[in-house]
């Protein structure tokens, strides 16, 4: 079973909930799909890490064969190829690796070579599998790194995926194929707004969802009213508690010290299992 922990707004507690849930129930794997700013490995120290490059195939033009006909540049939807006069240029950081330029080149002048855009790390931590991705600084395309992380997912057993904030393509890539999505939010106008856009994405993908309200007690009732109106169950509430915030700041999963919460996370998993059964 794959459970994604997601949120529209950043800093609502996705990583904290993903890690504490995984530890409390003994997940098989935890995967950090926030490849721009991965944080799971701060809370779950990686043991025996193996690093693998994430590569995209990008075009290389053979100047001997190129006739500067411009077909490739005209074809490319991402402006990654540019032909001016007798020079053909490739802008690899814009390339989405669709392979189209190679297919349209009438001279067979284009080949593809791998280019590294990030890394994934496969490790163990506290008896669980840990996988996380890191986009290289300066690179734009996150989706191929997220899919490289997801390729490491086990087919059976409980896999918990920590998503990046937002409601664009990284969320789509992370949630695609999941069995359940736990939407984490805070009860504030910012939290509500971003919960609305993120749930729209998850619903489009047809993945069942439930809401976890973190920092309960601050803000207003807007999130609760929205959930009620939309028939989305609030399946966990974590109060605003300075102790949790301090443990978080030190990179300690709060269930390690506030052990009474382990049972709450186990109940959360039971609720999720009942919802998707």
């Amino acid at each position: 079973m794959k459970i994604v922990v997601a949120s529209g707004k950043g800093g609502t507690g996705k990583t904290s909930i993903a890690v504490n849930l995984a530890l409390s129930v003994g997940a098989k794997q935890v995967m950090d799909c926030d490849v721009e700013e991965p944080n799971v490995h701060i809370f779950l120290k990686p043991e025996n890490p193996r690093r693998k490059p994430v590569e995209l195939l990008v075009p290389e033009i053979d100047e001997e064969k190129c006739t500067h006909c411009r077909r490739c540049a005209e074809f490319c939807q991402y402006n990654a190829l540019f032909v001016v006069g007798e020079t053909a240029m490739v802008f690899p950081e814009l390339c989405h690796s669709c392979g189209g330029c190679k297919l349209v080149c009438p001279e067979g002048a284009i080949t593809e070579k791998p280019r590294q855009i990030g890394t994934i790390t496969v490790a163990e931590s506290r008896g669980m599998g840990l996988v996380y991705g890191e986009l290289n600084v300066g690179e734009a395309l996150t989706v191929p790194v997220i899919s490289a992380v997801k390729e490491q997912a086990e087919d059976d057993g409980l896999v918990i995926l920590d998503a990046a904030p937002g409601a664009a393509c990284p969320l789509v890539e992370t949630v695609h194929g999941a069995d359940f999505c736990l939407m984490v939010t805070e009860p504030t106008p910012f939290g509500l707004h971003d919960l609305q856009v993120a749930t729209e994405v998850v619903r489009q993908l047809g993945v069942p969802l439930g809401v976890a309200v973190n920092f309960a007690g601050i803000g207003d009732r807007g999130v609760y009213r929205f959930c009620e109106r939309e028939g989305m169950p609030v399946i966990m509430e974590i109060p605003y508690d300075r102790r949790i915030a301090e443990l978080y700041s030190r990179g300690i999963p709060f269930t390690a010290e506030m052990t009474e919460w382990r049972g709450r996370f186990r109940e959360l998993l039971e609720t999720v299992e009942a919802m998707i059964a």
Partner: protein
Amino acid sequence: MKQVTVLSGKGGTGKTTITGCFAALADRPVLADCDVDASNLHLILNPKIMETIEFKGLNLAEIDPEKCTMCGLCMQLCRFNAIHDYAVDPIHCEGCKVCVVNCPAEAISFNERVCGYAYLSETVYGPMSHARLTPGMENSGKLVTLVRQNAAKLAEETGRELVLVDGPPGIGCPVIASLSNVDAAVAVVEPTLSGIHDLKRALQLLEHFEIVPSVIVNKYDLNVENTASIRGFCEEQGIPVLGMIPFDENVTKAMVQAKPVVVFSPESPASLAIREAWDGFGSFLGL
């Protein structure tokens, strides 16, 4: 004209709270919300939309079932795994056109799709450029670029000298777009190990694009040891720390009232600290 971006790496550190306050404190700014898929600045600046512009992202391939001969070539060629059972999945199609030009039956059309809207608005603090990406869409970087262009245009039209950009979290495509051609950036960080980890990646990104960095520590009193380590790190790197904002319940109360905290409770601890950070920011920018 000067353009500055507020970013953070990690989400939820207070970018929008600070941008909203800077909007209220600045002399005749133009505002740009570049978090186009989970935008929040409008929730505290209450813009009145004056103009709405359709945003067309990449085109979408569509298969005409009448013409399709089910040869399967498109499925073989698509590298985004976006074609199943002779139909294009619009969520995964990246608009590359490979299937369109290679279909032997010419059964695939390539159509424009509206992926969101850009807005030109007015707020009590100045003109605002913002947008809404249709949830789940690609190309937020391209929409961010449009928001930036609109903001520059608004600044030019109204003779304003400062564009304040509220950036998205992360370091990927939309963040890169929100940093192009800016004069300086301020990274907002909370004193947590995650925050520090993400700050370092955000600062590396600024270095990569040769953008002058500065830092604001938000909720600095949450963990004073981590705050000291951020200050030590910044000092080592020669990065100015413009402000230290304490945890203050008025920040959330102001958000609920849809106001920047410096307007809602000008004398609260957070407001006083943000005002000081703004003064530091002004001299940092040479305003």
